[in-house]
């Protein structure tokens, strides 16, 4: 049962990362030059503030505070958002924001991969020829324009000038599927153009490397058609890096989404983080980062499982690890 021990080891590694990340973020509260209780209760007196500190464990030192927060987090209590006039739960905000972000990220990934895979295969197959040069150069430029710039330019052209699409807000499915997608098109485009460039380049490079391998010549000498060789023999071994990078870019997407969500007022998780920082809601920030780190761990495991699926060599290396 070597396999089990590999996964145990891998999961424990990731858990260590997860704990260290959340602990690190919980230290932020200690670094800020301001007292959290003062921010939360600007008009309260010292006893009330002390009670507040005790309620979230701030009086217990960094480790005590972290352990209390962690205990609550595991039980689904992500803390509260405090503002003048009341509190709301962080989980309440996240439950509303999460689906929007997840949908935005999923559409972005699907669109980016859907475009990048054929482009990558085509430009590797026609490497050095015109189609390849056109694709590579166009994408190279796209990869250098930040997503928010693309978003703002889209707003100017598509949203303001021609008024084809709404520039702000989000629509749920219940408001109509078409409405939902209309609000998503521009954010998805802004987030995905850079990714398309990145994915295409990765796939192209790996495909070109694979195409030079003897097993491709071997497949040719068996009399297989180019199309079959490309997709059946070359694509799969060449796609490991692509899928790894796609899964790991989910984290980066959340970062990118902060800006895009604030431009398009999508109010997803990215926007919540931004709002938490702007409003000095450090508990909210801490829990949001923890949730993102959870995602990171999850997608790392997806990569591990997926790459074993695509490339049997990794599976066996693990069995021996």
């Amino acid at each position, binding site marked *: 049962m*070597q396999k089990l*021990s590999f996964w145990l080891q891998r999961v424990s590694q990731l858990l260590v990362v997860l704990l260290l990340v959340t602990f690190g973020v919980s230290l932020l509260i200690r670094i800020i030059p301001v007292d959290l209780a003062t921010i939360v209760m600007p008009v309260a007196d010292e006893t009330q503030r002390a009670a507040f500190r005790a309620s979230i464990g701030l009086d217990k030192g960094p480790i005590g505070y972290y352990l209390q927060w962690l205990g609550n987090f595991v039980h689904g209590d992500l803390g509260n958002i405090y503002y003048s006039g009341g509190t709301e739960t962080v989980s309440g905000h996240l439950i509303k924001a999460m689906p929007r972000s997840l949908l935005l990220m999923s559409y972005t990934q699907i669109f980016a991969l859907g475009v990048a895979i054929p482009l990558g295969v085509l430009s590797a197959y026609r490497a050095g020829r015109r189609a390849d040069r056109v694709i590579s150069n166009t994408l190279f430029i796209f990869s250098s324009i930040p997503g928010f710039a693309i978003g703002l330019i889209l707003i100017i052209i598509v949203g303001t000038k021609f008024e084809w699409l709404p520039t702000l807000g989000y629509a749920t499915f219940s408001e109509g599927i078409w409405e939902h997608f209309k609000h998503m098109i521009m954010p998805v485009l802004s987030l995905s153009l850079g990714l398309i460039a990145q994915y295409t380049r990765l796939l192209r490079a790996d495909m070109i490397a694979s195409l030079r391998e003897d097993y491709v010549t071997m497949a040719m000498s068996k009399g297989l058609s180019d199309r079959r060789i490309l997709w059946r023999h070359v694509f799969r071994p060449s796609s490991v890096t692509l899928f790894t990078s796609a899964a790991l870019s989910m984290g980066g997407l959340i970062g990118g989404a902060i800006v895009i969500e604030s431009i398009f007022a999508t109010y997803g998780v990215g926007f919540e983080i931004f709002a938490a920082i702007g409003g000095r809601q450090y508990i909210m920030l801490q829990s949001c980062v923890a949730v993102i780190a959870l995602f990171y761990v999850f997608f790392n495991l997806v990569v591990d499982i997926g790459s074993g699926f695509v490339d049997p060599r990794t599976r066996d290396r693990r069995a*021996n*690890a």
Partner: protein
Amino acid sequence: MAGSGTAHMRNTVDSVLTVRDLTVEFRVAKDKIVKAVSGLSFDVVRGETLAIVGESGCGKTTLARAVLQLPPPNAGEVVLNGTDLTLLPKENLRSARTSMQMIFQDPISSLDPRMTVHQLIDEPLEIWDRGNRAERDERINKLLQSVGLEPELVLNRRSYEFSGGQCQRISIARALALDPRMLICDEPVSALDVSIQAQILNLLLHMKETFGLTMVFISHDLAVVKAISTRVMVMYLGKICEVAPPDVLYAKPAHHYTRALLNSVPIPDPTKQIRTELLQGEPPSPMNPPSGCRFRTRCVGASALCAEQEPQLREVSPGQFVACHHPIV
């Protein structure tokens, strides 16, 4: 074999290198240990060339590196000029290593691509502060000339501008810079073309004479070894099969493995094709070697005894030692 024993050890005062019961094992997984070299002993006498021959995975390269303590072996002693290297503290080991230099298989990977030939050969001299600039430059020129390179043409070029054979010449010059007593060559010609192989082999022979070197020459190629060795040691799965001078070993091998190996070498002469029975199968895994004689699973002469008892090296003819219960007579 593939057995153990020390009958072939000569224990003379002339021994430059004496290796006793050397064992190297790697852990590749939790409960998987590769037994690369198992309790192996040999000695190398001044002025001789000991050839270590075996197929891939027999542990010959691991052996060479363990002798140089790169990394140190798990057990056993490596006595160089009377000093046991395995017991030396780090700093002393550093200086002890200089009397034993190594030539590697991949001539290109063994030279730093960012350094000029001058810098490459100067490096060992610089580490040990051998002479001033002018003296060192003169030494570099001499070394280059002795390996057949024109100093003016090569000094300021980098390794990637040279062919494999030329890189190997540079490596030899570098290895000789510190006046070592001993040269360990790990497959120095197997990455080279046939016509270049001969050049490097002849150069090594020539250098050996000029510099009074003692040599350990590791190879998978019995033919290459025959041309340059004074003693041949055949290895199989981390153990010794047979030790003998080449004229004896090639004429009448006593170990079944040695014979099989010899019969497998293709001879470039259509009139001399021998078609004997081939060795069947492939070597077993060094993680789980067979009991008793490690070669018994593929040996035509194996008996029940071979599974039970590990054969010890013994002398079957003057100078010819074999680790086999049923040697070929």
